[in-house]
C-alpha cells in the first residue's frame, strides 16, 4: 500500500516536472538568445559562447523602453481596475435582483465577448479620434473599460455567495451598495485576484488597438515596441529577444511576487 502510494507520488512528480520543463523551456530559450551576438543567433548550444549585453544596450538606444514599460503598466493597471469595477457592479445587479430586462442585459454582456475585434476597430478609431483620445493612454483604456469575461466570472462567483449573509445585511438595513462593498467584496478576494491577474495579462498583451491608436513611440506600449524589431526585411532576433525579455520581465516579476496569492486565488475561486 505504501509502495503503491510512493509510486503514485513519484509519477505525479514526474508528470509535473515534465510539464514545468515544457512550460519553461521556450522562455529560457528567449532569454538566452537575448545574450547572443548576431552571428551566433542560430547556434543550438544551450548557452552563448560569448554572452553579450549588446542587444539590451541596442534596445535601450532604439527606444525609450523604460517609459514604454511604464506606459504599459499604467495602461494595464487602469484597464484592470476599470474592468473589475464595472464587472463587480454589473454582476451585482444581475445577482442581487431579478428584474425585467435583466436576462437581456446578461445576454448582451455575454454575447459581446464574441464580437470580433476587427469589426469594431475602424468605427471605434473614428470615435476615439473625435473624442480626442488619439495617441493617449486614456484612449487605450476607455474602450476596454468593461469586459464580458469579468462580469460573467464575477456573476458566477457571487451566485455561489451564501444568500443568508446577504439577507442578514439587508435586515441590518444595509443598502445594496453597502452590502456589495462591505459584505460581498471582502468575501470575493480570491476570484477578484484571479480575474484581476487575467485582465492585467490580457491588457498587457494587447496589440491591435494600441497599434492603431498610438502614434509616437514615447506614448507607446510594449507590444508595439516588440514590433519595432520585426520587419519585412527579416527579424532582428537578438534585439527582438532582448525586447521580448524586457517585455515579459515586469509581468513575470509581478507574477512571481504574487505567485502564491495568484495560485491560491485560482485554487480557491476555480473560475467557472
Amino acid at each position: 500500500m505504501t509502495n503503491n502510494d510512493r509510486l503514485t507520488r513519484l509519477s505525479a512528480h514526474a508528470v509535473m516536472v515534465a510539464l514545468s520543463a515544457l512550460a519553461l523551456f521556450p522562455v529560457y530559450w528567449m532569454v538566452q538568445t537575448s545574450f547572443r551576438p548576431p552571428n551566433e543567433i542560430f547556434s543550438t548550444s544551450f548557452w552563448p559562447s560569448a554572452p553579450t549585453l549588446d542587444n539590451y544596450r541596442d534596445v535601450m538606444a532604439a527606444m525609450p523602453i523604460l517609459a514604454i514599460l511604464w506606459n504599459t503598466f499604467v495602461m494595464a493597471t487602469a484597464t484592470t481596475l476599470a474592468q473589475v469595477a464595472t464587472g463587480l457592479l454589473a454582476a451585482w445587479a444581475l445577482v442581487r435582483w431579478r428584474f425585467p430586462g435583466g436576462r437581456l442585459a446578461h445576454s448582451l454582456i455575454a454575447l459581446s465577448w464574441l464580437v470580433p475585434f476587427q469589426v469594431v476597430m475602424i468605427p471605434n478609431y473614428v470615435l476615439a479620434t473625435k473624442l480626442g483620445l488619439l495617441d493617449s493612454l486614456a484612449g487605450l483604456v476607455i474602450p476596454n473599460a468593461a469586459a464580458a469575461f469579468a462580469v460573467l466570472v464575477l456573476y458566477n462567483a457571487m451566485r455561489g455567495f451564501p444568500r443568508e449573509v446577504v439577507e442578514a445585511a439587508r435586515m441590518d438595513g444595509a443598502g445594496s451598495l453597502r452590502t456589495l462593498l462591505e459584505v460581498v467584496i471582502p468575501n470575493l478576494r480570491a476570484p477578484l485576484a484571479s480575474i484581476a491577474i487575467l485582465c492585467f495579462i490580457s491588457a498587457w498583451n494587447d496589440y491591435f488597438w494600441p497599434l492603431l491608436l498610438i502614434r509616437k513611440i514615447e506614448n507607446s506600449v510594449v507590444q508595439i515596441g516588440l514590433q519595432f524589431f520585426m520587419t519585412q526585411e527579416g527579424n532582428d532576433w537578438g534585439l527582438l529577444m532582448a525586447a521580448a525579455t524586457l517585455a515579459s520581465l515586469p509581468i513575470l516579476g509581478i507574477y512571481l511576487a504574487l505567485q502564491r496569492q495568484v495560485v491560491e486565488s485560482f485554487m480557491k475561486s476555480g473560475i467557472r
Partner: protein
Amino acid sequence: MIRRKFLAIAVSACMALSGTLGTASAQMAESVTEPVTISFYNYNLATAGIGREATLELIAAFEKANPMIKVEPIGAPSNEVLSRVQADMVAGQDVDVAQLVFRDLIYAAEQLGAQPLEDIAGEDLTAHAAGFVPSGLALGQVDGKTYGLAYVFSTPVMFINRDLFHEAGLDPDQPPRTWEEVKAAGKAIAEKAGKHGFFPGAYGPTDGTFVYQSIVMSNGGKVREGNILAFAEKDQADAVAMLRDLMDAGAHARIDVGAHLDTFQSGNLGMFLYTSAVLNRLESAAEGNFELGLAPMPAFGEKPTAPTNSGSAIFMFSQDPVKQRAAWELMKFLTSDEAYTIITTKIGYLPLRLGTLDDPRYLKAWIETNPKYRANLEQLERLTPNVAFGGPNYRQVENMMKDAMTEAVFGTGDPHEVLRAAQERAQPLMPN
C-alpha cells in the same frame, strides 16, 4: 432606421467633400511663407535601427533647410501603413505625405485620392525627375500619371552561400546566370553538401510578390493585361512551372516559407533570391559562419531579366495649396541626391539617381568601398515596374494569385491548371 440615417450622413459627407475637391486641388502655392505642419506616414519609422535613424535624419535635414515647414512623422509597420492612412482619412485627420508599398499604388491613386504630380508640380516634376533611373517615374505611374514618387526601393538579387558552393564542388565566382544553371547548382548543393539548394522569397506570408513578378516578367509575361488577369497564360505560367521543375528536381528548397531568411542566415541554404535591402542583415549573420556572395537574378536562357522593385513610393494627399507646396518640397527633398546619399549608405536601398555614383559629393566613395552593390545597380538599367492591381477587391485578387502560384510550386497538381483555376476564380473580382 439606423441604416438610413447612417448612410444619409455618409452620402452627404461625400457630396460635401467632392464639392470642395475641385477647388482644393486647383493650384499649388508658389511658396510656403507661413509656418505649416504636414503629416508624414512612414514605415521605416516603425522599426528600430538604421531605417528609422536615417529617416529621422532626413526629416531633420529637411526642416533645417525649410524652416517654415514642420514635419509630423507618424510611424506604422509596412503591412499596416495603408490601413492607418485609410483609417485617418475616415476619421477626418489630415494626411499629407505617405510612404506606401507599390502593391497599393492603384488603390492610392484611385481610391485614396493621391494627387497626380504632373497636375500639381508640372514642369518642376520633369526637372526633378531628370536624374532618375530610366524607368524611375514609371514605378509610381497609373494611366500615364505619376502618383507615387519611388522612394526607398530595391530589386531582387541572388545571395549565395559561398561555403556551400565550395562543398558542392561549384565555383562561387561563377554563380549561375540562368535558371538551367540554378537547377544544376541547386541539385549539386542538395546532393553533395546535404543542404538546401535554391529558394526565392516569393511566396509570402511576408509580401513577396515582387520576386514572383520579377521571375514572371523575366520570362516575358505579365500578371495582368489591363483589367484581364494573365498570370495563368503561357510565359507567366511557364515561369512558375520552371520553379516547380526545380522543386521536383530537388534543387528548390522545400522549407517553411515564412522562415526563408532564417534558413539562409543559419547557413542551410545555398542560393536565396530576395530583396537587396536585407544585405546588411545577412552580412552580420554570415560573419564568422560562412562567406556571403552576391549575384544578379538568374535569366531564362538568353532573355534579359526584368527585375522589379520592392519597397515603397511617397504619395501626396494634401488638399490645401500651401500644404501641397510643403508636401512637394518634402517629396523632392526625400528623392534628392543628398537624400539618396543617406538612404543608400545608411539603410542599403538603391539610389533612384545613378548620377550620385560618379559624384564625389555623394556616393562615389561609397560604391568604391562597396563594389558588391554593383550587381544590383546594373539591374537598375532593366528595372521593370511592379504590377499593382486595381479595383476595390485588389487585395483579394493578389491573395488568390499568390496562393495559386505557391500551390503550383509546392503542391502536386499540374501548375498550369492550378494557375488557370485561380485566374478564373479571381477574374470576376477585377474591375470591368
